[in-house]
């Protein structure tokens, strides 16, 4: 099967006066797995439903291999969808569920049986072909839903939070299984999720969405290393986000009057937002020469592989710091109340202007050689 390319062209969908999807444009390459990621209400599910044809856009176009499909009803779009709730047909056996799309296409019985057989093998549920959905576990049901969607050889596979009803142990397995199937079959796929780790694990590229808009599109690593907005920095890297003002220099002045000594020197003036990932902050005792900002440890949590410190740097402002908890690299733990200094490297410092656009720094000191953390 040849994979299709999907284009979303300035797609708009309103609910009342609220723009659920606000002018979204995307190009999904053939065979690519694109993840729409964002908090609930960001418009990712609405986008998926627009692609599936369950709702129609107020403006914009959706093209599959260059052909507009925006006026086609769902049953003519040739898309396999896997729902969060599995949405199996409760009155039909596993085999009949998988055969459903083939029956709708009036494919002859022998070919249908062969395809069902192939799909059952693919999901390793040959033995359960005659069972009803309610007799299966959640993971098995989700595999049947996947097989049912793939059986029609769809042009596009749409996954709507496919893992969120599974328990944690099963989730990682299922994620790998879906990803493998998707790659083996080379099928263009869009997946919607609110889970950052899940998105990173599966995506070729990520689309981070916020308030119906695209914040940033890119490979997981690129988003992690080069967040385009404070929102992406917080959502992808779990960054600490600190708002303040900058006056053409290297000091970010917070609302409470305290100031953060930035690594870089910036030419901008006005509102600015600093984002620093918890795992790129180094902790030292207060009074150290290279303190960006100082504060008091409020909480120290040892999680095994990592240690987390919550450091209060202002009345309404805390910073999360994370470091290795075990082995030779294990960081020193500080008891609550200890005064500490926070420091980070130039490449881990992300500063944004009042419109949340990235600000480029003119480094005042050579960037420290430092390993880059990959999550």
């Amino acid at each position, binding site marked *: 099967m040849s994979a299709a390319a999907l284009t979303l062209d300035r797609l708009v969908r309103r609910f009342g006066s609220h723009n659920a999807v606000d002018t979204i444009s995307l190009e999904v390459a053939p065979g690519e797995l694109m993840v729409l990621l964002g908090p609930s209400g960001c418009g990712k599910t609405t986008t998926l439903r627009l692609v*599936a*044809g*369950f709702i129609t856009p107020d403006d914009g176009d959706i093209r599959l291999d260059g052909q507009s499909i925006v006026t086609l*009803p*769902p*049953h*003519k*779009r*040739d*898309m*396999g*969808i896997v*729902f*969060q*709730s599995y*949405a*199996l*047909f*409760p*009155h039909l056996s596993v085999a009949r569920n998988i055969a*459903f*799309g083939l029956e*709708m*296409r009036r494919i002859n019985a022998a070919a249908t049986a062969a395809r069902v057989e192939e799909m059952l093998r693919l999901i390793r549920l040959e033995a359960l072909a005659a069972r009803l959905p309610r007799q299966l576990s959640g993971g098995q049901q989700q595999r049947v*839903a996947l097989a*049912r*969607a793939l059986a*029609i050889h769809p042009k596009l596979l*749409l996954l709507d939070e496919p893992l969120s009803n599974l328990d944690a142990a099963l989730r990682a397995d299922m994620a790998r299984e879906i990803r493998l199937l998707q790659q083996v079959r080379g099928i263009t796929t869009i997946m919607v999720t609110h889970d950052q780790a899940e998105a990173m694990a599966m995506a070729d590229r990520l689309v981070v969405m916020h308030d119906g808009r695209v914040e940033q599109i890119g490979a997981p690593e690129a988003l992690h290393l080069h967040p385009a907005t404070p929102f992406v920095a917080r959502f992808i890297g779990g960054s600490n986000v600190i708002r303040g003002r900058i006056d053409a220099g290297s000091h970010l002045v917070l609302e409470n009057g305290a100031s953060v000594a930035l690594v870089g020197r910036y030419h901008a003036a006005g509102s600015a937002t600093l984002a620093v990932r918890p795992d790129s902050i180094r902790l030292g005792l207060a009074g150290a020469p290279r303190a960006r900002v100082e504060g008091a440890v409020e909480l120290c949590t040892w999680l095994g592989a990592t240690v987390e410190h919550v450091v209060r740097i202002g009345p309404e402002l805390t910073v999360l710091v994370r470091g290795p908890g075990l082995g030779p690299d294990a960081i020193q733990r500080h008891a609550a109340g200890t005064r500490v200094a926070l420091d980070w490297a130039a490449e881990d410092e992300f500063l944004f202007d009042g419109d949340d656009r990235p600000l480029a720094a003119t480094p005042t000191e050579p960037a420290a050689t430092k390993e880059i953390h990959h999550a």
Partner: protein
Amino acid sequence: MTDALARLEHAAVSLLVAVGVALIGVPLLLTVYLSVFDEKLILFPPRGYTLAWYPAIAANFGGPIWNSLQLSAAAVAGSLLVGVPAGIGLSRLQFRGKGMISTLLLAPITVPGIALGLAVFILLVAIDERLGSSLTGAMLGLVLGHVMITTPWVVRLALASLVTHDRAAEEAAASLGAHPLAVIWRVTLPAMRPGIIAGALFAFVISFENLELALFLSSPGVTTLPMAVLQYLEYHVDPLVAAVAVAQVAGVGVLLVVLDRFVRLGQVVR
């Protein structure tokens, strides 16, 4: 202390259940008891006991029973035809006036049967006057009246059966290539099966035991069972009527038990 309290609570609940069962059961048992009296009049204590009244049902009420069965079957068919699509539409579609239509479809339940019978009668007379038709006293008028009083139950049960149904299954069917009508036929209706069967059963019982509409709407020649029983009671007070009642209750009871084997009525009717 708490032990005594729990025992007291248990006793109180048991008592309430017993009272409830007695309220329902005693008249029923009494009817069964009356139906085997070997008396021309209902006298107590009876001379003896006989099952002779039961075979007599067919001879005396055979015609009306047949009429009622036909009428109820037509009412069930009509109310399913109206009520099931209405239920699907009300649960799945958004449209103007939805609230009003929903209220109207359920309204006949709230109007006393006798008022409804009179109202439909007046309506049919008015239509006949204008159009020169003869709906008054025709079977069609009676059937339409019965469809009206049974449809609310079908709608309500159809709606109830869709509440727990996952809409995503319908979207999944559409994405797999099912035309909207195929979605309803292959996914929605199978999911509604218990509700539809329960709705049909309710419609049948409501229609079969309805007296008020028949009083106004039945033609002189066509007598339903409740009417026949009423007419019979005007001249005779004997155990035959009790036997008819028992037969009717038994019939419905058997129907319920049989249906419960196919659909769990308890899950549909709450």
